[in-house]
């Protein structure tokens, strides 16, 4: 019993249950005192019931069908913007690492971008680009871009001086310095940036949806808030978008494990070859090889001297 209590999932479950109980108590209270309780705080079972009900909320679809189909459109747009943002963010960080001038130019502006309320600018970007799809992708990309760029740059900067010295002592080319040391080391930072920005990209996509009616979660959300359809659709979307945000965040964690196998906790024991360790072992190997070569040369020199 004690073992179960100490597990992390148990305490998560505990808090989720606590929150659900609080929600239910509040919902009963609201139901007893207010008119139209479903607008303020419906019972959880009512929301779940709405998800599985077969009643159609508009001409063609039930509530969950509508939510899922609009999710597909929203997520697709968010993902496209996110991918563009990640790639440009990484490239910018790389260029900033590569050249001091680029860093000097770009870094202050990178800080400034953070201050600009991009989400607040959504309507203006919409009117500049003219197309809601382009503006949605653009906003998601800009929001993604900043955390990825700063975190990756931080990762590049976190490389210890000793590693540079070591690579210099091997007379390593700049290219192999990047592929063998810098890029592997910045990977955890890069993924941290992606973890921060994935939920933001989804928020951005939903927000831009609310501006114009062509499907997508945000569009349905605002329709249902205006009582154009069942209010339960609104609650479903609230829960579902929270779920999407969390899933996108988790997904980045899984992607990180997939891309950096040495961090996999299950494999850590079986295979002692984590990147750090293999690097070290290789270093040792190379060091001994170098030493022996030097030794030989030294020996030869001695011999020839005689």
């Amino acid at each position, binding site marked *: 019993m004690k073992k179960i209590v100490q597990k992390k999932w148990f305490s998560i479950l505990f808090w*989720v249950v606590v929150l659900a109980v609080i929600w239910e108590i509040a919902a009963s209270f609201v139901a007893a005192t207010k008119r139209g309780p479903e607008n303020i705080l419906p019972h959880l079972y009512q929301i779940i019931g709405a998800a599985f009900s077969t009643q159609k909320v508009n001409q063609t679809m039930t509530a969950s069908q509508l939510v899922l189909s609009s999710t597909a459109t929203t997520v697709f747009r968010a993902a496209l913007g996110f991918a563009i943002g990640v790639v440009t963010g990484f490239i910018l960080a790389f260029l900033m690492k590569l050249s001091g001038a680029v860093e000097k130019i770009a870094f202050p502006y990178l800080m400034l971008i953070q201050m600009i*309320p991009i989400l607040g600018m959504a*309507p203006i970007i919409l009117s500049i680009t003219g197309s809601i799809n382009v503006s949605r992708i653009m906003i998601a990309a800009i929001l993604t871009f900043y955390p990825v760029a700063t975190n990756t740059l931080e990762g590049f900067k976190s490389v210890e001086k000793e590693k540079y010295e070591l690579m210099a002592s091997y007379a390593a080319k700049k290219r192999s310095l990047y592929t063998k040391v810098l890029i592997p080391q910045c990977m955890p930072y890069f993924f941290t940036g992606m973890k921060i920005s994935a939920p933001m990209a989804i928020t951005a996509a939903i927000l831009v949806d609310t501006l114009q009616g062509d499907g997508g979660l945000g569009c349905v959300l605002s329709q249902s808030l205006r009582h154009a359809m069942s209010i339960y659709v609104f609650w479903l979307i609230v829960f579902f978008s929270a779920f999407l945000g969390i899933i996108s965040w988790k997904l980045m964690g899984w992607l990180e494990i997939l891309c950096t196998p040495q961090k996999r906790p299950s494999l850590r024991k079986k295979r002692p070859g984590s990147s750090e360790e293999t690097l070290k072992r290789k270093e040792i190997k190379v060091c001994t090889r170098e030493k022996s070569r030097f030794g030989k040369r030294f020996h030869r020199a001695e011999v020839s001297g005689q």
Partner: protein
Amino acid sequence: MLYPVLFGILLIVLWQTKILHAILHTDTFTLPLLGRINGVIADNFSTIMANTGVTVQVALLGLLIGSIAGYLIAVLVVIFPTLGKGALAVTSVFTAIPIVALAPVMNNWTKDTSNVVSVRSAVSKIIVVALVCMANMSINAYRGLTEVKPFSEDLMKALAASRWKMFIKLRIPNSVPYIFTALKVGVPSSIITTIVSEYFAEYLMGIGRQIKENILMAQYAAAWAYIVTACVVGISLYAVLMIIHAIVMKKRAPRS
């Protein structure tokens, strides 16, 4: 310092000579020239200031309440680690909830807090901002409270310090830089969160609301004026934070 300034001048020149408009395929109506935006700000200075006041109030109050709550959660997690780990995970989930989903819910929940629209609306916005800031602060504060230097921890143990003493003398001072890390993210995000939740709020004041209203009325120059104001507010609040950070860190620096 020279390069960024040159880049900024280049950007302004591109903007003023309408080359930027050509690149973005837009006109001076949707992307007005800088002079026009400045003119709008100067003409409507008092209105803009009133709206800015509403937004800054909400953002700062939300940031304050959220940060204190987040810090308290972190303290509780350190004291009760068994159940706390889960609480931290659940709080961190709040960062992943889109503001767009939170804001309308909060509007519904805070309907009864006051009969005055401005107060009611401010309460709901403050709660949203606080929730967003809380998660960020609790994670950072938890790291600050637990990632103490091993030798200081050993020293405290060797001196038979009570848990309480250890908390006051070691853990809390150690968490100060982490609080600033959280605030550096929290200050800009509190302003952005306020602006976005204003889109959904009842009350018609606030920078976000004005941006939306002006765009609905196709007053793009006025909307740009509010966007510029929002940037200025964000940058100045960040600068204030940096100054406080510098002062606090200077005091904490080891005396020689």
